[in-house]
């Protein structure tokens, strides 16, 4: 009750502060629109950003062809056929980064169910993540091919066994009918897999048909950046209370210190949720009026709401952290700028996370913004469901716990 009274009072104060309201609600929209407008031309860029892969097909058979098609259809990898000498020369000259060689006995080995080795050669300085992604795509296509062949082979064996059965059973289980049924099932399994493994591919070129607009990609980043900026209002509010002496009056009142801190944190949590609502509403509805395509909010509304709640919680606890580290008005400004803008930038709020991963390695992972951006990107850009973003939400809750512990440890109640 006391915590809510404090939060209600702080919200009353905030509603009278037009500057803060502008910063919290209008500034993110202005940022998104300005940046999106400036870079809107990039949305029409049709350059192929898929990872190139040169393939030498020494086999030339039906299964090799199926493998090459499978790699191309997996997305993210652009296949270019070459011959052995040219491919090797290009690799040595550094003109290509990777060369996949399909051995001459590939089709026959598959037919005879004998293991066969595909050779993926890459430059020493080739991007490790891209190479790993290409390897996974090739492995996936090869496994599909092997799976299909193995199912067909086993069913054929079953059919042959059935052939020795009485005539009334043979009519019902011919080899052709069983194989047809298996193919249908295999295709159905591909269309609606029971376990859907999705590969993250650097440069995000995997789904070109559904490539998001620049507005779409900028919305999650700027939303996270400005939602975390709400933490600054918590820290400033605590500092103002201490400076004016009202904090002393609150300490003398019959309320616990925990209620006091919860009360000071609650407004930024509520504000952050309202920020999410406003930005997503404007992005979904009002962007159309301004000539921008409406943003996608993904396919899982519950996951989006849960993610917004977790991000808002993490952001509001950061306010306590800043208040515990900063003891003067100048320090509140300095620490806020350092933490909120600094972590926002390295956390992928301005430069997308997949680019930061390549530039900064694991460094962005130290920022809560990184996990918030990844969660929103997964939901809004990749349309992933809730289970796929649980690790990101776990990291955000971990950061929140860390901020609370440090905040309580360092907070100066006197």
């Amino acid at each position, binding site marked *: *009750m*006391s915590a809510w*009274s*404090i939060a*209600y*009072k702080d919200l*009353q*104060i905030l509603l*009278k*502060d037009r500057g803060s309201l502008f910063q919290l609600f209008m500034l993110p929209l202005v940022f998104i629109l300005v940046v999106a407008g400036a870079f809107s031309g990039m949305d029409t860029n049709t350059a192929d950003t898929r990872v190139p892969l040169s393939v030498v097909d020494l086999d030339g058979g039906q299964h090799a062809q199926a493998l090459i098609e499978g790699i191309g259809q997996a997305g993210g990898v652009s296949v270019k056929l070459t011959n052995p000498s040219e491919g090797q020369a290009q690799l040595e000259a550094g003109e290509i980064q990777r060369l996949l060689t399909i051995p001459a006995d590939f089709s026959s080995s598959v037919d005879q169910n004998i293991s066969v080795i595909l050779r993926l050669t890459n430059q020493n300085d080739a991007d490790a993540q891209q190479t790993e992604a290409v390897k996974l795509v090739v492995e996936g296509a090869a496994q599909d091919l092997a799976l299909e062949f193995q199912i067909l082979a086993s069913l054929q064996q079953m059919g042959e066994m059935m052939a020795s059965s009485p005539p009334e059973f043979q009519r019902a289980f011919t080899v052709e009918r069983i194989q047809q049924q298996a193919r249908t099932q295999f295709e159905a399994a591909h269309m609606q897999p029971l376990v859907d493994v999705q590969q993250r591919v650097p440069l995000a070129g995997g789904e070109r048909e559904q490539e998001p607009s620049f507005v779409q990609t900028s919305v999650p980043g700027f939303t996270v950046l400005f939602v975390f900026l709400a933490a600054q209002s918590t820290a400033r509010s605590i500092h103002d209370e201490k400076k*004016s*002496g*009202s904090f*002393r*009056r*609150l*300490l*003398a*009142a*019959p*309320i616990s210190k925990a209620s006091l801190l919860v009360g000071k944190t609650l407004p930024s949590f509520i504000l952050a949720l309202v920020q999410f609502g406003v930005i997503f509403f404007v992005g979904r509805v009002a962007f159309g009026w301004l000539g921008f395509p409406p943003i996608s909010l993904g396919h899982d509304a519950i996951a989006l709401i849960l993610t917004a709640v977790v991000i808002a919680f993490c952001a509001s606890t950061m306010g306590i952290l800043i208040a515990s580290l900063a003891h003067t008005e100048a320090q509140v400004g300095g620490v806020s700028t350092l933490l909120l803008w600094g972590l926002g930038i390295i956390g992928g709020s301005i430069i997308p996370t997949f680019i930061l991963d390549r530039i900064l390695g694991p460094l962005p992972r130290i920022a809560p913004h990184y996990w918030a951006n990844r969660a929103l990107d997964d939901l809004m850009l990749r349309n992933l469901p809730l289970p796929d973003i649980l690790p990101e939400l776990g990291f955000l809750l971990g950061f929140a716990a860390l901020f609370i512990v440090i905040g309580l440890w360092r907070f100066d109640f*006197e």
Partner: protein
Amino acid sequence: MPAVLEVEKLVKKYGDFEAVKGISFEVQEGEVFGLLGPNGAGKTQTISMLTGVIAPTAGTARIGGHDIHDEMSTVKKLNGLVPQDLALYPTLSARSNLEFFGRIYGLSGRELKERVADVLRIVALSERADQAVETFSGGMKRRANIAAGLLHQPRLLFLDEPTVGVDPQSRNHIFESVMRLNRERGMSIVYTSHYMEEVELLCNRVAIIDEGRIIAMDTIKNLIALLGGGIIHIGLEHVNETLVRQLSALPGVESAEITAPAVPPPPAGEGDLELAEREPVTAEPVIKLVAKNSQQAIVNVINFLNDENLTLTSLKILEPNLESVFLHLTGKKLRE
């Protein structure tokens, strides 16, 4: 009369610095008790410990019989605190401020509205209740600040320098409010100030506090009686112990001692919060006389100096009041 507040050897340390050095005192039910001392003497630190704002390093206190270590949540309900700072939210109206602080003390609904209206009447702000505090004059802000401490009808009210930066008219209004609260509602009050006039006007008893210690505590009458008929500082070109003994034996003189001269400090603005400084020592020695009767003492001292052909270089007479008591006890002035 039972004691509403009993303080025992209260200590507050910050590292090696001891802000409050084991002070002890009692406040009786219905009493207005003054804590008089210069800024930095430890008054606010003492109040902060008694109201649960900061934890004591050592010692304890009981308020209404409840120990501040074991029953602080009960103690907080009995206490009212009016801090020295204007602990209000300037962009909110006086009413919104008071409603907030009332809710913090568990008031709600009709009771909250009635209490808010009551305290607004006490501090004469009913007509400005719905205006933002930032539009108030300094005196009105001070009164609103006091009102916020009265909402839950505390048994013991701590007023920490409530008149700093206030115009004379508002100051008088605050005095009237304090006296009415004590007289009509029987509220016990601990009043801290470095203005001796306020303490003399409002308080039944006074503790004079300096550098974290209580150096004297009694009724105002008894404290002033320490000075007898007043203090006289006389400056001479040469002094010695024989001369001091001769002066102390004169009719009307209680005692005499060689001391530093009392030089008036430069004028300070109203609400100046700087620490009182030690009086600078000049080259000319000064003898401090405590008089039984200041007029008789002065006549006899001047006659004696004429008889002895001694040249008087300065003469200062301090009326017997709390200011001169403080100066007498500490060698410092309670600076305004």
